[in-house]
């Protein structure tokens, strides 16, 4: 303990000396090896296999914990703890070949038994994995030898390598899994050094790391919840980077300042004006189409997002493979909207619009309400906190409309689920989705993705609004941070300071 404290003090002093050198304008001899990143929300704990909060993955994904595969900065699947894999002809048996010489932070060796343990744990009856559905197609996980794992599926699935790259599918060790919430033990290039609750989480470089050595020795995630405070923290140099900057209104000031790099990238956050398809008046397709025509996405993005955010026309992110541009499907046309409402006998509609806490929903909801009133729909705005939204809207479906961003990548499955909150039950869509899941042929999969998007847009299940932007602001000398967030992550393996 004492030694750890001393190491910590020595490192801290060295880091302070380096930053003091920069502040005084003396040339630093070597590039910095520490970084301070601002994050908005504190994670409840640090185990991505037991909690859905994006803040968990934003600290530990690919830094502390790794999966068999990983999702890279461009959203593609890359090998991670599995060096390579093969899939059988029928698409039902996957064989993963594991990397040799990998150790967990506590010194235990990583092998096929850990993979079996992790996947079986996520699938178990008492599993509390937030993405248990990802593992549902798995029938058995077998250890062939310490370096080989065979996964047999209940039915063919082409999405398995992608699913295994999620933060909820990282590999943990039986010796340490129970305590990962507070003392995460993974195989990644960084390990947890300290967590001062309510203020920051610090990771340090792990010495026995198997992969390409990382440039950073220390990464501190500083929790700054208030948008104004995050602006002040960047300007004052308290943090080096804010990978997901929460105050779009302040972006022009950073763009004008040569000390900073501003990168407006994409997330997977498909922001929707969701309609309750299960009850009046939105069980009528004409009313849903009217709403789609009533929404002026351009004005919405300007008014609620300060111009950041790409308009979307279906439930699919433009940067993902298989995207079809359907933004022209329902052009902004208040007259047409009114005509459709009249045809449906739904004049003088009065609806409740439930808004969860994020700014995109609260600000966006105000703009949308005005646009809907413009075509004669009277809108009552009901703000809710997340806990209430989850039980009232998501579980009990006690709502007419809501605004929410679906941040999971490639989540077209939600429209094929029984009992999902917006109540879309279409056999044709489900059959199409089944075909997509079963297909392991790349070109067929892409074609089916296109058809799925078109089917949703045609049925106007929801009014799709815009893709949530990822506004990243960091010190201009910092390199290698992700421009986009295909999955919630702050992967620091390639981050470094320019010399």
């Amino acid at each position: 303990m004492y030694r750890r404290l001393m190491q910590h003090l020595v490192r801290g002093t060295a880091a302070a000396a380096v930053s003091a050198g920069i502040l005084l304008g003396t040339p630093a001899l070597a590039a910095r090896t520490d970084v301070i990143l601002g994050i908005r929300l504190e994670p409840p704990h640090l185990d991505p296999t037991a909690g859905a909060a994006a803040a968990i993955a934003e600290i530990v994904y690919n830094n502390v914990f790794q999966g068999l595969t990983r999702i890279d900065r461009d959203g593609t699947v890359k090998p991670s703890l599995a060096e390579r894999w093969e899939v059988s002809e029928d698409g039902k048996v996957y064989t993963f070949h594991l990397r040799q010489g990998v150790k967990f932070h506590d010194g235990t060796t990583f092998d096929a038994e850990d993979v079996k343990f992790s996947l079986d744990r996520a699938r178990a009856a008492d599993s509390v994995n937030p993405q248990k559905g990802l593992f549902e197609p798995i029938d058995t996980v077998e250890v062939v030898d310490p370096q080989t794992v065979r996964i047999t599926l209940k039915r063919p699935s082409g999405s398995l390598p992608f699913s295994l790259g999620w933060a909820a599918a990282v590999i943990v060790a039986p010796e340490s899994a129970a305590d990962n919430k507070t003392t995460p033990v993974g195989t990644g290039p960084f390990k947890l050094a300290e967590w001062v609750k309510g203020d920051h989480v610090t990771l340090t470089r792990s010495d026995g790391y198997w992969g390409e050595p990382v440039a950073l020795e220390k990464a501190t995630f500083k929790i700054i919840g208030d948008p104004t405070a995050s602006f002040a923290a960047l300007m004052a140099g308290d943090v080096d980077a804010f990978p997901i900057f929460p105050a779009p209104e302040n972006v022009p000031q950073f763009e004008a300042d040569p000390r900073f790099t501003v990168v407006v990238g994409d997330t997977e956050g498909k922001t929707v004006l969701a309609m309750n398809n299960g009850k009046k008046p939105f069980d009528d397709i004409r009313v849903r189409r009217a709403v789609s025509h009533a929404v002026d996405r351009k004005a919405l993005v300007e008014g609620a997002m300060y111009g950041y955010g790409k308009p979307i026309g279906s439930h699919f992110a433009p940067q993902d493979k298989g995207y079809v541009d359907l933004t022209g499907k329902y052009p902004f046309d208040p007259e047409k909207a009114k005509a459709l409402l009249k045809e449906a006998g739904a004049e003088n509609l009065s609806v409740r619009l439930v808004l969860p806490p994020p700014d995109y929903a609260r600000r966006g909801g105000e703009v949308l309400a005005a646009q809907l009133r413009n075509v004669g729909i009277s809108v009552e705005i009901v703000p809710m906190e997340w806990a209430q939204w989850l039980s009232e809207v998501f579980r009990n479906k006690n709502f007419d409309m809501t605004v929410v961003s679906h941040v999971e990548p490639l989540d077209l499955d939600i429209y094929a689920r029984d009992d999902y909150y917006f109540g879309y039950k279409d056999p044709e869509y489900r059959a199409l989705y089944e075909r997509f899941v079963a297909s392991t042929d790349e070109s067929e999969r892409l074609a089916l993705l296109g058809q799925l998007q078109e089917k949703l847009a045609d049925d106007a299940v929801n009014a799709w609004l815009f893709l949530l932007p990822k506004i990243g602001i960091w010190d201009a000398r910092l390199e290698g941070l992700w421009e986009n967030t295909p999955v919630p992550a702050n992967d620091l393996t390639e981050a470094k300071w320019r010399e």
Partner: protein
Amino acid sequence: MLVYLAKRLASLAATLVIASVVIFAVMEVLPGDPAEIMLGTNARPDTLAALRADFGLDRPAPERYAAWVAGFVQGDLGRSYTYSVPVGELVAQRLWVSLPLAAISLLLTVLIAVPVGALAAARRNGPADVGIMAATQVGIAVPNFWFAMLLVFVFAVSLRLLPAGGFPGWGAGLWPAGRSLILPAVALALPQASILARVMRSSLIDALGEDYVRTARAKGLSRSEVVRRHALRNALIPVLTIMGLQFSFLLAGTIIIENVFFLPGLGRLVFQAITQRDLIVVKSIVMLLVASVVIVNFLVEVAYAAVDPRLRRRA
């Protein structure tokens, strides 16, 4: 005296029991489910059920109430759903922020209120008095969170003298930690000091009208000496009473102020716990606060009774 004590103790116990039932009931009817918050929108019903069982939420309410009270009495505040560490540990960590913050702001309150109030009383109806009365009126009217934002804007964003928020932990050193408490303490103290200064002023004016002041003046003491040696001490009694009351307001005020400044204190813990439906944390902390207020009141009553026999008989 023994009978009196027994009666008081019984009423103390009854108050605590009623409070615990009310707190538990309110948490029960609060919409929202901690498991849903933890597992998010992709959670499956079986996973949610497994997590609820893990939290013990699958058991009937009376059973959970009994388990909570039994644990509480033995000093076990339960285990946080979200952080999965003992609630007692969380509270202890957070008190290291909230108690120093409350202490500093109380100190600031007194350091501002007593001299300012005394000055106003001594210069009654003079320009200093009028100025002070106007200023304290503004101090009472302005909400402390708004004042806090003003302080951040001036001292953190414009002048960059103090941090805009956050708390590096006492491990970072006395000054780095202490300086991040300065703005929050000032924001908390000013409205309180405004109230206290006005109490101080009127109490001192009353004292200055007393016979013993006239006698002291007649003996030949100067005006300022009379204030210092006689009136001030007597005037402090109501000020102390108000200060005692203010301490509980201070605790409530820290909830808002800690959120404005992102201080990891007890107030923010309660606030976060409510939004995440970490009900065990909310229940235990609220109960802890209720218990401490009730017990302090009990001790004060006993102390009064010890001094004044009339109170014993009336009870």
